[in-house]
């Protein structure tokens, strides 16, 4: 399991420098924003679902620490093409892994890189914020 240092050295800084899908969408079907008042991290998320209910396109914007930005960036690539239920299952596993619960790590793929964060609970919020925003954007729309 990677230490905080190693996590930074490998993927976190790389995604912080060149975040994937760092953009607003032209015609999003879903949108939500989130904020961590304690550290000032902010994420704004756009999604476009296609007719089958798959996530066709996703973009995020915001400011914050490298962990939250890297996590948002990796989330956008991980959920692309997934159904809403698949994306939520991914979040459940991701969340379980970070809070030290038994998690289905198989489906996590590259997201496993964050595993070492589980021993730094104060930073887990940073890594899950984008996912909470994702959940909110999808949850809100499902009800409407």
């Amino acid at each position, binding site marked *: 399991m990677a230490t905080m240092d190693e996590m*930074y050295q490998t993927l976190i800084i790389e995604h912080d420098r060149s975040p994937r899908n760092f953009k607003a969408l032209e015609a999003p079907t879903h949108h939500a924003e989130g904020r961590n008042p304690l550290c000032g991290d902010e994420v704004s998320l756009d999604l476009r679902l296609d007719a089958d209910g798959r996530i066709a396109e996703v973009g995020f914007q915001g400011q914050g620490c*490298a962990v939250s930005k890297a996590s948002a960036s990796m989330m956008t690539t991980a959920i692309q093409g997934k159904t809403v239920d698949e994306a939520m299952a991914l979040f459940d596993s991701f969340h379980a892994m970070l809070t030290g619960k038994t998690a289905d790590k198989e489906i996590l793929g590259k997201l496993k890189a964050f595993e070492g964060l589980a021993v730094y609970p104060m930073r887990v919020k940073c890594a899950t914020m984008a996912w909470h925003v994702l959940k909110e954007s999808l949850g809100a729309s499902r009800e409407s």
Partner: protein
Amino acid sequence: MSSVRAEFPIFSRTSRGKPLTYLDSGATTQKPQVVIDAELGFYEGWNANIHRGVYEFSERATMAYDGTRDTVAEFLGGVRADEIVFVRGTTEAINLVAHSYLKPKMTPGATVLVTEMEHHANIIPWQLVGATLKAIPVTDAGELDLQAAERMLGEGPLLLAVTHVSNTLGTINPIAELAAMAKRHGVPVLVDGAQAVGHFPVDLTTLGVDFYCFSGHKLFGPTGVGVLWGRHELLEAMPPFQGGGDMIDRVTFERSTFAASPQRFEAGTPNIAGVIGLDAAIRWLSAQDRPALERLDAELLAAGYEMLEQVPGLRFIARPASQVGVLTFTMDGAHPHDIASILDSEGVCIRAGHHCTQPLHARFGVPASARASFGPYTTEQDLLTLTRGLLKVRELFG
């Protein structure tokens, strides 16, 4: 190596397996053994509730609790012991004044004058009782604009509420000068001393202010205890804050009457062990060579500035002319939380975020900053370790 460091048992511990480099005394200070032993001794040896027991332990607890008022009164330059009110901390002290002093005087649109560098604890309580806030601006150097202060004091605020020392910038504000100005305008003054009392002696018999408050946990004492000092005439005229046991005179369902201050403001069982620990902390601090501690703080601060200036991309938020040992900065390309996490992996404890001063951060156009703050146990080695850690951050993010 600082001579007092050996009195703090925590420095024999490690953090993330590395020697502890504690640079977060602005958030809370470490505790010398005598403070820990004072609480321990109470619980193990003579624990009892105060004020209504005649038996030995209750008597001793009562004498120790009320006797701490004398210790605090002397520590604050020799004020009256009955002007010392025990509270949970600075935050509760300010809420008490907002509720019991300011609120009865509130009229629609009435203002409280604060400053741009206030901690949220010296902002929200006034808002909660309905005051409109005006804020004395902070200059680029991180100092109060005294001309603006003079003008704004003339605009008729009900109160000037100002911090003695900025928790974010370390700035030591010219309280005596501000108090003299306020007096000319007939404006009473509350001073938030949370970051001051641990760094230099404060003499309330000459400062010219009306309320002063601080927290025990930032003064080498326990958590959950703090002090509100108020001028006797003001305290005596104020209605209670909270109600309950020990603050009453006569109680009936129709009407109750209350005890004199300071008892009137101490409803319910207080943090007895905390007050006893605070007594030990103040005695400990008072027994130190305080000018020597101030010199040490200043020397380390100068050394710290010099070291950190060598870190590429590091910017200090401001650099006030007169300040205590606090270094607050940002780094190009590295968020304060990431800085703090990487330092953490080296055993270095600093704080990242807005330090409960969102308006000050807005003033300087940054959402967050990294802060290293000193205590009397801080050493040059701590600063070297910090610098080394920051160079590593630079390497990763550079």
